[in-house]
C-alpha cells in the first residue's frame, strides 16, 4: 500500500482526474413527485376541518390522559424488565444439559408464543373466576403432608383476595410480561449461541465457574445480538399496552384517549392524538436504544468516540482493510 499522505510530491505523479460526474436526472424527477405529494398531504391536514387540531391540542394533555401516558410507560418498563430477566432465565434453562429444565423452558415458550396477547390479557383479567382467594403458603402440599403425619398443619402464611392480587394493572402486567419472557427467551438464546465457543473455553481454562462465565463473559457479548431485537420488542410492547384495556385497565393511554373521543363525539381527532403520543414515546425509546447499543459495542472494532470510525459506521468514507486479527494458519 502506498502512503498517499506523503509531503514530498512525486514528480512523476500525473494531474488529478477532473471528470464530469454522472448525472442522475431520475433523482430530480423523484424529488419533484415527492414534493407534490407531500404538499397535497399537508394541505389535506390543514384544510380538512374534521381533524379539529385545536380540539386535539386542548384535549391531548388532559390530566387523565397524562396519567394514561404514565400508566403506559410503567407497563412497558415493568413488563420489559420482567420479560428480559425471566427470558434470560428461560434461555439458560433451554440451553442447559438438564433435559427437565430445557423441556420446561420449551413448553413455556410454546404456550406463551401460541396464545395471542389479547387473549392472555382477557384471560388474566378473569383469573379471579378460578380462585376467589389465593393462599400464599410457606410449605407446599402442607395439608396432605400434615394428614400423613397425623397432625393438622395449615401451610398458609397469608391469604389475599384474587381481585386484589389480579386487579387490572397486575393482571395486565403479568399477561404482557409472561408473554414477553417467551419471546425474549428465544432472542437471548440466539444471542448466547452467537458467542464464540472459544470464549467459554478460555473462561473455563481460567477456572471461572459456569455462572461467572455466563454473567461476565457470555452475556455481555451476547448483548450485541440481543439488543436490536429487544428494541423492537420494547416498541412492540409500548403499543401492546393498549391491549390491557380489555383486562380491563382503564387508566391506560389509549383507553383514555378513546374515552374522550367517544364522550365528545370527536373519535377521529383523538385517534390522531393517540398516533402522536405513540410516535413521541417511541422516539424516546429509539434514542435510548442508540445509547445502549453504543455501550455494548465496546471493543467490537467500532469505537464511536473515534470520529472517523463513527462516520464510517454511518456510511461515510470507505473503510480500509480490517486491522489486526490473525489470518488463517
Amino acid at each position, binding site marked *: 500500500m502506498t502512503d498517499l499522505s506523503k509531503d514530498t510530491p512525486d514528480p512523476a505523479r500525473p494531474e488529478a482526474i477532473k471528470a464530469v460526474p454522472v448525472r442522475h436526472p431520475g433523482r430530480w424527477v423523484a424529488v419533484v413527485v415527492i414534493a407534490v405529494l407531500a404538499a397535497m398531504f399537508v394541505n389535506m391536514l390543514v384544510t380538512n376541518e374534521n381533524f379539529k387540531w385545536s380540539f386535539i391540542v386542548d384535549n391531548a394533555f388532559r390530566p387523565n390522559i397524562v396519567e394514561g401516558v404514565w400508566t403506559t410507560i410503567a407497563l412497558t418498563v415493568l413488563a420489559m424488565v420482567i420479560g428480559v430477566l425471566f427470558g434470560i432465565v428461560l434461555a439458560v434453562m433451554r440451553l442447559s444439559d438438564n433435559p427437565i429444565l430445557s423441556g420446561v423452558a420449551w413448553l413455556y415458550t410454546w404456550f406463551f408464543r401460541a396464545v395471542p396477547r389479547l387473549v392472555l390479557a382477557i384471560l388474566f383479567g378473569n383469573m379471579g373466576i378460578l380462585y376467589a382467594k389465593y393462599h400464599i403458603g410457606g410449605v407446599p402440599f402442607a395439608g396432605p403432608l400434615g394428614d400423613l403425619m397425623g397432625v393438622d398443619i395449615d401451610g398458609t402464611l397469608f391469604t389475599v383476595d384474587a381481585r386484589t392480587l389480579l386487579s387490572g394493572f397486575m393482571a395486565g402486567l403479568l399477561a404482557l410480561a409472561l408473554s414477553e419472557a417467551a419471546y425474549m427467551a428465544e432472542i437471548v438464546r440466539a444471542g448466547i449461541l452467537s458467542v*464464540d465457543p*472459544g*470464549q467459554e*473455553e*478460555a*473462561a*473455563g*481454562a*481460567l*477456572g*471461572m*465457574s*459456569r455462572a*461467572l462465565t455466563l454473567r*461476565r*463473559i457470555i452475556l*455481555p*457479548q451476547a448483548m450485541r445480538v440481543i439488543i436490536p431485537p429487544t428494541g423492537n420488542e420494547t416498541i412492540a410492547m409500548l403499543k401492546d399496552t393498549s391491549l390491557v384495556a380489555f383486562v380491563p385497565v382503564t387508566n391506560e393511554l389509549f383507553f383514555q384517549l378513546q374515552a374522550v373521543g367517544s364522550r365528545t363525539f370527536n373519535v377521529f381527532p383523538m385517534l390522531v392524538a393517540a398516533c402522536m403520543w405513540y410516535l413521541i414515546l417511541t422516539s424516546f425509546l429509539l434514542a435510548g436504544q442508540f445509547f445502549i447499543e453504543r455501550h*455494548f459495542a*465496546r*471493543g*467490537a*472494532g467500532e469505537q464511536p468516540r473515534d470520529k472517523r470510525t463513527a462516520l464510517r459506521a454511518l456510511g461515510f468514507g470507505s473503510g480500509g482493510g480490517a*486491522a*489486526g*486479527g*490473525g*489470518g*488463517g*494458519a
Partner: protein
Amino acid sequence: MSTADETGGLMVRAEAVHKSFGRLEVLRGIDLEVKSGEVMCVVGPSGSGKSTFLRCINHLEKIDAGRLWVNGHLVGYRESGGRLYELRDREVAAQRRDIGMVFQRFNLFPHMTALENIMEAPYRVKRQPKAEVRSRSLALLERVGLSDKAGSYPAQLSGGQQQRVAIARALAMEPALMLFDEPTSALDPELVGEVLEVMKQLALDGMTMVVVTHEMGFAREVGDSLVFMDGGVVVEQGTPGDVLTEPRHPRTRDFLSKVL
C-alpha cells in the same frame, strides 16, 4: 494439597489415555510424564491428537480410558474405594486454576481491555484485592512488553500482541503448569518471534510448559524434551537435539523431512 515434590517431581502423568470423538479414536493410549520445570514440546501432523491430548490435561475434553494426573491430582475425577467419581463443575474449575492455557486463536475477551482481561480471573475467581490484582496485572503486561496497551481492546491489537496478552492473562492465575496449543499458528510470520520470545523467557524463569507447536527452532532451543505424535500415539520421545537430528522412527523421519 500435595505438591509436585511428593509425586516424585512429576507435574503431568498420563497412563494409557484414550479419547474418542464418536467412532473416531483420536488418542489411542498416551503414556507421558512431564517433570516439574520441564518444557515439553509436542509435534506431529495435524489430526495426530496432540491438541486433544493438551485439552485433556485441563479437562476441556473428558478422557474415555486411562488415567491422567496433574500435580498429583487425578484430572476430572476423584478415586475412592476403587471407584471413580466425576468431579462437580465447581471442583473442575478449582483444578483448572492451577493450569494456564494459551489458545491458537487467543480467545481474549473482546469486550474487555487488555488489562481487564488479565485482571478478570484473579479478581473474580480468586477474589484477590482489586488494587493488588491491578498492580500485578500491569507488571505482567510489562513482562510481555505491552505496558502501553493496558487500555486497548483486543480488536485494536495485532495478533502477536493479543497472544502476549493471552499469555499474561494465563499467568495472572499463577499457574503451576502452562499449556500452549499451537500459540503461533494463527499469527502472521513476522509476529511469531515476539510470542516465542515471551515463551522463552517464561521457560527460563522455570515454568513447567507443554507446548504443541510447529516451531522446530523453538523446540530445539527452548524444549527440554520433544514428543512426536502420530495417529493418536506417541511415536518417539527424547531430547529435541536427538529427535530432530537423528530420528529413529521412519514416521518421525518422514514428518521432519516435510517440516524442516
